[in-house]
């Protein structure tokens, strides 16, 4: 039996379903009203994670990008600069391999690798399980590196304080316009690999304009994780951002 698509309003199937709510569904079957969010389980687990982070004053960030924008390198560089000054921990998400977690391991910061297999995004349950394998002190920055994907992670709340979307000049200025859901869901945008600007036709001002259009509330950092240019502002932000649940000063 195949599946069908019914449009609401004018469509017979949509009206038919509404008329028969609670009635016999035909041929001895029953109709059960459900009226529940499909992603209810993830929403609930994400809230549970969020409460956990608030209780323990952990600042959790969800790093998202296309594959290859430089999430792991930015993490390595961030850890290099901040390690010892601030408690840090990392959750790495990839379909396969421990490669990214191994890179982070070499920095000495606690890290857990989550392999999603066929999955294209981390979800709240995966974070919940990963948290059981990490010991986080109060005030920790938990940096979650999501699977490289600008589509699905926007739909799966992990309980983070903020999404950080990372783009690079080789991807073109119009990335924000192509993936509005992700750029709207994020509060921070890092434009990485600015060391490559002299070699590309990338118009940085135009990219900023598109970012502003799609989400005027985005906080934007332009930097190079490789050369260190512009890194100071990002590090400063990360070091001084207040974890949720912190008392207002």
């Amino acid at each position: 039996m195949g599946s069908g698509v019914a449009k609401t309003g004018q469509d017979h199937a949509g009206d038919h379903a509404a008329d028969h709510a609670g009635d016999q569904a035909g041929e001895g079957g029953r109709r059960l009203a459900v009226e529940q969010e499909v992603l209810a389980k993830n929403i609930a687990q994400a809230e549970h994670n969020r409460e956990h982070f608030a209780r323990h004053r952990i600042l959790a960030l969800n790093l998202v990008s296309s594959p290859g924008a430089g999430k792991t390198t930015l993490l390595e560089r961030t850890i290099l600069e901040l390690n010892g000054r601030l408690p840090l921990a990392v959750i790495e998400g990839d379909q396969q391999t421990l490669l990214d977690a191994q890179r982070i391991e070499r920095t000495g910061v606690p890290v857990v690798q989550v392999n999603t297999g066929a999955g294209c995004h981390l979800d709240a349950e995966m974070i919940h399980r990963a948290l059981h394998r990490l010991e986080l002190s109060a005030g920790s920055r938990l940096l979650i590196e999501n699977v490289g994907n600008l589509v699905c992670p926007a739909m799966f709340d992990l309980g983070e304080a903020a999404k950080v979307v990372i783009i690079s000049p080789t991807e073109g200025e119009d990335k924000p316009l192509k993936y509005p859901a992700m750029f709207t869901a994020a509060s921070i945008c890092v434009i990485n690999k600015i060391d490559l600007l002299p070699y590309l036709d990338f118009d940085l001002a135009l990219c900023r304009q598109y970012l502003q259009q799609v989400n005027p509330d985005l906080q934007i950092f332009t930097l190079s994780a490789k050369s260190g240019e512009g890194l100071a502002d990002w590090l400063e932000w990360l070091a001084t951002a207040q974890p949720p649940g912190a008392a207002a000063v």
Partner: protein
Amino acid sequence: MSIAISIVELACQQAGTAGAGRITRVEVEVGALAGVLADSLRFCYEAASRDTMAADSELVIIELPGDGECASCHGRRDMTEALALCPDCGGIMRPRGGRELRLRAIEVDD
């Protein structure tokens, strides 16, 4: 695929609680701005429902309209795309309604 799997899991959970044997039909509301493509969902649903109580069930996708508010003039308009410009002033439209992704009902055999 995760969404298709979530639908199957939720439907099976509901059917199990009701003591049903088999799911014959699943009705899902998908808002125009939910970020879900009906065709992709249909495709994934068939795979996700295999070997479950929902195997061979009919997936009915009820598409709901989206609406948004212009960031500049605050006019409310229908929105069918995640990125849209206000027809009045050309400002960016912010999604307000149309992000539903709900399991409305299931039909079961005992």
